[in-house]
Structures are given as C-alpha cells and as structure tokens.
C-alpha cells in the first residue's frame, strides 16, 4: 500500500484547544478517506504554540531554530496539509500568519490544502473564504472547495438546512483532500537547494563573454 504524508497545523493557543480538536477530527477523517482509496496516511501534527517563540525569533534573526526547522520541513515536505487556525479579530491568528511568513514563498506550490477554523460565533465563518483561502492561493497551494468552520455551538448541534452537521462537513472536506493527496508526489520529490534559475550565467548576458 502506498503512503502519503499529511501535515497538520493547529494554531490554537490554549491547551487543550478546540482548534486542536477540530484538527484531529479532520486528520482522522482524511486518514479514513485515504484508506478507502487504498492509501496509508502518515499524519504529523504541529501545534504552533510549541514553536511560538521560535517563530518570533525567526522573524527577527532570519533563521529558524532546529525545532522550528523540523516543523517547517514537515509542512513543506508533505503530500497534503490540513491548516486550522482560530479566528481572531476577523482573520487567522497572528501566530498562524507569522508561521506562514517564515516559510519560503515557493515552498507550498502545488500543495493540496484543507483550510479550517474555529471561533466563538458562527458569524465569522466567512473569514475562511476572505482570509485563509486567498493566503494559500497566493502561495500557489491547491485549496479544496470545502472549508470547515467550527463555532462553539457546532460541537453540540445537528446542523441546519443549509449545511450538514460538523461531522458531515469534516467528511466532505476530508474526501476532497484525500483525492488530491492520493495523487500528490511532493513528499518523494528531491529538492535541490542550490538549483540555479533557468538560463543563469555567472557572467550575465552582456559584454563579458
């Protein structure tokens, strides 16, 4: 059976956090969906809280600590990513964005991503579509159509006419991600850190030849 690496970012700040709870549910559902497609999932969860100071230090010094570097490599070398943030003041949390800011801008190109968020009220659910989705689109990641927002009330409701209950939304998003993850070969790609741009010449295009 083939194996796909699934990275999970949980940007919740408290412990335990509902963000982590949602991240775990999404990871489990994705694993199940992949299995039904005949693929094993290798899931690695990153609680950004554990690297919060390292992220800030990286912003200031320009380089990651060994612990943060390991987290970055988990994300950038995965076949698919599940990114879950709490919604703070109408958008992703500052810690979540700071982590994204220390990544190489090209590092997420082609990466299938499931975006999800938690919040106190369902009124912020569109933050996924006006903040999270454009962020990953800018990075040339492939964001699945279904995003999952879990308000506090979702943990004890059966959904409504417009949307299914939280477990239904989780399953639908996981199915979409699993389909893309199955075809992803990102984790087996060799990345040459010294690749020169196409057409690069050490003497330039003029004069010196």
């Amino acid at each position, binding site marked *: 059976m083939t194996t796909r690496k699934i990275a999970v970012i949980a940007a919740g700040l408290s412990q335990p956090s509902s963000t982590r709870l949602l991240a775990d549910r999404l990871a489990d559902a994705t694993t199940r969906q992949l299995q039904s497609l005949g693929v094993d999932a290798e899931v690695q969860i990153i609680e950004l809280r554990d690297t919060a100071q390292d992220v800030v230090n990286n912003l200031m010094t320009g380089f990651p600590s060994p612990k943060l570097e390991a987290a970055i490599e988990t994300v950038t070398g995965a076949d698919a990513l599940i990114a879950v943030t709490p919604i703070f003041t109408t958008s992703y949390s500052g810690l979540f964005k700071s982590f994204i800011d220390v990544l190489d801008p090209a590092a997420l190109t082609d990466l299938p991503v499931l975006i999800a968020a938690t919040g106190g009220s369902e009124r912020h659910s569109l933050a996924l579509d006006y903040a999270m989705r454009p962020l990953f689109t800018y990075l040339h990641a492939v964001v699945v159509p279904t995003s999952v927002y879990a308000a506090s009330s979702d943990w004890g409701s059966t959904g409504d006419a417009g949307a299914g209950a939280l477990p239904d939304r989780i399953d639908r998003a996981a199915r979409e991600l699993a389909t893309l993850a199955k075809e992803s070969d990102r984790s087996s790609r060799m990345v040459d850190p010294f*690749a020169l741009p196409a057409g690069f010449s050490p003497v330039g295009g003029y004069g010196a030849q």
Partner: protein
Amino acid sequence: MSTIASASNTGTGMQFGIFTVGDVTTDPTNDTTPTEHQRIKNILTIAQKVEEVGMDVFALGEHHNPPFVPSSPTTMLGYIAAKTERLILSTATTLITTNDPVKIAEDYAMLQHVADGRVDLMMGRGNTGPVYPWFGKDIRDGIPLAIENYALLQRLWREDFVNWEGKFRTPLQGFQSTPRPLDGVAPFVWHGSIRSPEIAEQAAYYGDGFFANNIFWPKEHYMKLIGYYRQRFEHYGHGAASEAIVGLGGQAFMAKNSQDAVAQFRPYFDNAPVYGHGPTMEDFTEQTPLTVGSPQQVIDRYASMRDYYGDYQRQLFLMDHAGLPLKTVLEQLDLLGEEVIPVLRKEFAENRPANVPDGPTHEALVAKRDAALLAVAEPVEAPEAAVAS
C-alpha cells in the same frame, strides 16, 4: 608561493582579522551614544589596533543609511593604510549592486597604489531595500546587477581599453579606468552571500574567494553553501575543491572568567541591532558561532571550524558592534591578539594539507601572474602556448 605570502605577512596559511559594520549604537549600560565623528575616529583607532595585536586584515562595511557611518570606505581605508605597515585592508562588503563598477575599479586600484598592494575586496549585494532606489536601482535586480557589474569590473581591471554594453549602465567605448591596478594585478576579490547559490556560482566561476558571514545563521547552513562553492570551484577548473578560497566571519566576547564575559556582554546582546530582543543569548550562542566566554572557549569553537568547512584562508571577527565602548573593544582585541590568534594559528597550521592555499596577498598574486607568464615564454614547458603565440 607560500614563502612569498609569508614574507609579507606574519602568518603563513590562515589570515585573521576584524570586520566592522560601523554601527552607531547607544551603549545600553549607560545610555550614551557616540557622535558620528567619535565613531568614525574609533573605527580608525580599532583598525590600527588590529595590526598592533598581530592580526592580518581589517575589513570595513559600506552603508548608506543610519545608524551606520562607513559610506566612503576608501577614504577611511586610505587613512588606515598610511597608519599601518602590514595590515591588509578589505571591505565587508562593497556594494556591487548600487555602486558604479567603473568607480569601484578606480577607487580600489587607487587604494592599491596608496597601500602598496595591501588591498582586497568583498562583494555584497546589500540588504537594505531603499538603498537600491536611492541609487537609481531596483532591488529585484539584485542578482543580475551583481553579476553584470562584476563582469564589467573584471574587465576594467584586466583590459587597458574596454568597450562595453550592458543592461544597467551607459555603454563604454574605449574606456580606460585609471589608475591601472598596481603591478598590473587586480585586487583579490571575495564574494559574500548568506543564501544565494548564484553568488557562490559566480565566485567559483572566476576562481575568486567566497566568504560566509557566519553571524546570523547556524553553521549547517553555511556548510552547505561553502560545500557547493568548493565543488563548483573544482568544476570550473581552478583546482581541487580543497584549494578553493574560503573566508568565514565570526563573533566573540571574552573575559578571563567565562561567567564575567556572559554578564558583561548580555546587555549588549539583548539590545543589539538585528538580533536584540529576539532569541536568548544562550540560544543564539548555541545556534550560531557567537562565542561568549573565556579565550579558551573561543579557541575551541573556532579551531573546530575547519572540521565543518575544510581548511580555509581567512577568519574575520565582528568585535565592535552593539554599542560596545572603544575601551572594551580594544581590550577584546588585546585578548584576541595575545591569547586566541597565536593558538589558532598553530592549530590551523597543524596537519594543514600542502595543497591548501595561503590567505591571498598581492605579492602572491603577482608571483602567480609572473609564473604564468614565464610558463608561456618557456617553449619547453608549454610548447603549444609558444606555437599559438
């Protein structure tokens, strides 16, 4: 070749020195800030001290924005040249992107004559965004500027009359930069880069030196970059990978008792430009080559560098930043010169393979050029060259 290099310098093999960014920073322990004038004079004093304590190189940064003062390196290096006898004067770095290569060619050829050849340069792109537009350039052209400007600089130093057309400056027809390089030999050039393989490739292509600043990143990062440069140096036919010319930066603060060094340096570290108010000093010393402790700790840390980078040619230390007062910096240089460098010289000389070049000097470059001319003129040794000419 090694005898020629050693004749002009105290050390055979490795060269040791100081590089400064020239920041004007408030001393956090007493809240005093030197004036620009004081800081400039302090840098000149520090440079003379570098020779006095037996080191080989003083390298000056180039900046065009406060709090940094050295905007005009050859003015300061010219003064230092007159006040010293052995010291090699260098830069860290010369902005190959925003300076006109014609002016670099002339300024540093002039400095070569003034300093009797004790001059080399380190090229850098500069990482202050607004400096590019202030000099009429675009930071997105950083690499193409570094590549094209250096290609022109190479020719200006090597060809008497240059015709040139490029993308970034006005064309030249029959231009001769003046004065010509001393003894007809261009200054040695290092290329500094923190993360660009293009610059390592450029250094390797020309057989120039490559310098890793070694201040802001873990050594593993620079090990990969230097490994790449060495491999490409060999690829371009300049010699074995182990014969590539490598320089490293570094940073230290010392006291006889390591606890005193930690206590004394901590306020400067915590408030330093760039990394201040970020990682703890303990994390930073663990993750980067910064060493705060006894002279023996500094010796141990830097003697191990060749285990990671291979035998190399030049080690520069950053010692005078973050608002450290002049008196402290001079004491640090005494410690470096008396207790650290002599031991490092001995350690680096031990088991240094015979094919590893010494640190570059003007005399060695002249000798190498003369040897090459002799080989061409000598038909027995180079019959094909003689036929071709």
